[in-house]
């Protein structure tokens, strides 16, 4: 595989390496193990959700309801734990809960062909306000002691969360490149009609990807809930934007069909590191959001800047053929 195909990922990686280099020069303390572990812990949930979001965006759709799904799954995790279920049961149940939530969006977008931005906007509001109505805003408290850190020591629990995240990441990245199912995601996002003619229905792929997205949200919520002794009912605020931003910064085309999970990892790392880096560099952390916004814009601008060039190439590699020359305007009169 040539490097040229990964120029978007490469430029994001370049930006991240520059950030790390600057930190190494001005604030080496940034690299102490405790800080790196905190960074990893704080970004594990975003990472898991950004994996799902990459798949959703690759199909050419979007899911902005993941933050609300996250809140529902978090409370569900608390309830299941409080009901006395063992951790080994809570985890799969929360994942199923997430899959169901994702499936609702997947059915509306995939099966009924409604626009995903509107469907998931509606679901975003519906899940969150439905949750507020049911919980009346109350947090889940008095969780059994063995729920936090899954009953392990804190350090072991943290290790587990990071390990699970890494395994999911590696498996998804491998499957996306090396299973037909993964290639089908690229195909429908690249050209839905060409995919249909090749026997791949976009609606089925989109449904499956939304369900998977929900399952990942469930996993992220369950892992995240275990970090604290109480469970909030308003979790996951703005999580959808963090995930989408990371995917876009990682070089995935918002129109679908192009992008990799490698890029998404870099996007999560870059955006997730900025805030802490600012603190270590002695800059007012209020700048964090502005800088993140600027990074997203730069990423999108490079996408737009590359586009006319691509089109030019397509039309001018062989100037004699930039139009289909012999599609005759009448039939059969030629000789």
């Amino acid at each position, binding site marked *: *595989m*040539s490097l040229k*195909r990964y120029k978007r990922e490469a430029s994001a990686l370049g930006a991240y390496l520059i950030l790390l280099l600057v930190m190494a020069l001005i604030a080496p303390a940034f690299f102490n193990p405790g800080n790196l572990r905190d960074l990893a812990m704080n970004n594990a949930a975003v990472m898991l959700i950004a994996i799902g979001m990459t798949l959703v965006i690759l199909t050419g759709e979007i899911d902005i309801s993941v933050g609300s799904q996250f809140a529902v799954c978090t409370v569900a995790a608390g309830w299941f734990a409080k009901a006395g279920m063992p951790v080994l049961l809570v985890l799969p149940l929360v994942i199923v809960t997430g899959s169901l939530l994702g499936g609702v969006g997947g059915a509306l977008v995939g099966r009924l062909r409604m626009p995903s931005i509107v469907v998931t906007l509606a679901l975003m509001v519906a899940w969150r306000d439905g949750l507020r109505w049911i919980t009346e805003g109350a947090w889940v408290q008095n969780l059994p002691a063995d729920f936090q850190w899954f009953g392990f020591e804190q350090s072991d629990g943290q290790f587990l969360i990071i390990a699970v995240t890494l395994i999911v990441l590696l498996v998804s990245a491998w499957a996306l*490149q*090396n*299973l*037909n*199912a*993964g*290639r*089908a995601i*690229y*195909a429908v996002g*690249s*050209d839905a*009609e*060409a*995919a*249909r*003619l*090749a*026997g*791949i*229905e976009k609606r089925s792929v989109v449904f499956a990807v939304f369900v998977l997205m929900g399952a990942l949200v469930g996993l992220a919520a369950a892992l995240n809930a275990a970090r604290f002794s109480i469970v909030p009912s308003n979790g996951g605020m703005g999580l959808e934007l963090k995930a989408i931003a990371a995917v876009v910064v990682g070089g995935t*085309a918002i129109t679908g*069909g*192009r992008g990799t999970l490698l890029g998404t990892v870099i996007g999560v790392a870059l955006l997730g590191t900025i805030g802490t880096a600012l603190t270590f560099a002695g800059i007012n952390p209020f700048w964090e959001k502005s800088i993140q916004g600027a990074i997203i814009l730069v990423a999108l601008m490079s996408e737009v800047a590359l586009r006319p060039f*691509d089109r030019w*190439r*397509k039309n001018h*590699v*062989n*100037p004699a*053929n*930039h*139009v*289909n*020359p*012999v*599609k*005759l*305007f*009448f*039939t*059969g*009169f*030629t*000789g």
Partner: protein
Amino acid sequence: MLLRAIDISKSYDGVDALESATFELRAGEVHALVGENGAGKTTLIKIISGAVVADGGSLELDGVLISENSPGRAKSLGITAIYQEPALFAELTVAENIAFGVDNQSLWRRVDWTKRRHRASELLAEVGARIDVDAEAGELTMPQQQLVEIARAIGAKSRILIMDEPTASLSREETENLYRVINKLREQGVGIIYITHRLEELSVIADRVTVLRDGQVVGTYEMAQTNRQELIRLMVGRELSTIFPKRKVERGEVALELRGVSNRATGLTNVDLSVHRGEIVGLAGLVGAGRTELARIIFGLDHADGGEIRLHGKAVRINTPADAINCGIAYVPEDRRRQGVILQMPVSANITLASLRQLKSLGGFDFQLEKQIAGDYVQRFAIKTPSVFSPVSTLSGGNQQKVALSRWLATKPSVLILDEPTQGIDVGAKAEIHSLIGDLASEGMAILMISSDLPEILGMSDRIAVMHAGTIVGTVDRADATQQQIIALALGGRSQAAA
């Protein structure tokens, strides 16, 4: 019999594309489909390949009914199609694009990248293409994309292979290579459906030929027992004079004049053209010869980088469509549904869209006047619509085209450019639009009519300008124009000797 398509019917927006067409394919034959544009060839093969669902009729493979045909089902039955427009994934590599047609696609199967690339190079070598299998398909040229499609179809090891103008953009060498591959497949017992516009190909490659005309099958013939002249007669099958009542109009002074207009990006070079008041100039040429590109420049959608445009004897600068409208130029575009009308908007708003300025009033927008103007056009052109407030989407294609035309006449133009004014319109509405165009010319309008419908060009035009490869290669007067002459010009000499 390998495949039998029985009594297939299909209509789009009330216009019949196919009317109970019956077609049979034997194993080990190359069966050509010929007919004019819009005769129904592509619709027929898309129904066979499952890309389009028929309204009526049935398909049988080995005498067994194919129920619920779809692209996936057709593929699993061994039916593969190459369409006119390459259906490749622009962001994916060539190897991967080929794999989508060839490989086992069960979802949890692992992709063997090495084998995939290897197989892709083999198939590309077989069709004689030198293409990097790791290149992105979107970066390939049109002929390269065509070759990738062919390689993919051959790799699918189908029982039925459908090719819609596979040689359209291929070089002579690549074409001969393709014939060799087709002959090999024929010997292996594959049934091949071959659509072409080049009749000279038929004697080389086809065993039988089926002629389609206006959505109906005229007949199926053994290639050995027919010839080019007879096929042409079967395809056209109508007299020109009965369809196009041409009125004699006194030609006025020059309204639109182009002097050396060029545009490098679209390949237009040194176009000279004049259209007089009261004159209909037909602009003929192959698709891609630059006709629409020229119209877009006159209308300010693209910009000339050389030459000048003169209106009524004065040079004008046209930078935007708004400039063009102010100069009295109107352009009815080719793609009616996407560019000609706004489907969801009512007839009235569609008609006044290009001339909103005249609807300004003290109270803001003059709805009364809008209704009145729209009503006038509906009456004048006999637009069949429940009311002027019905959305245009509820109208038939012919009536939609009349709405598009009304919009531009409401700007009171002196120069009217029509791009494929009757494409995809049924015969009755076509005649009405033709007589309308005649009326406009007799009122003194200068009309430039782009058309791929040769009888229409010959029947309607006072003069015919023929484009080839971005320039006008000849202008023919109505009295002297023959089909052969225009075809020869449109082909730009390449096939001139044979025509």
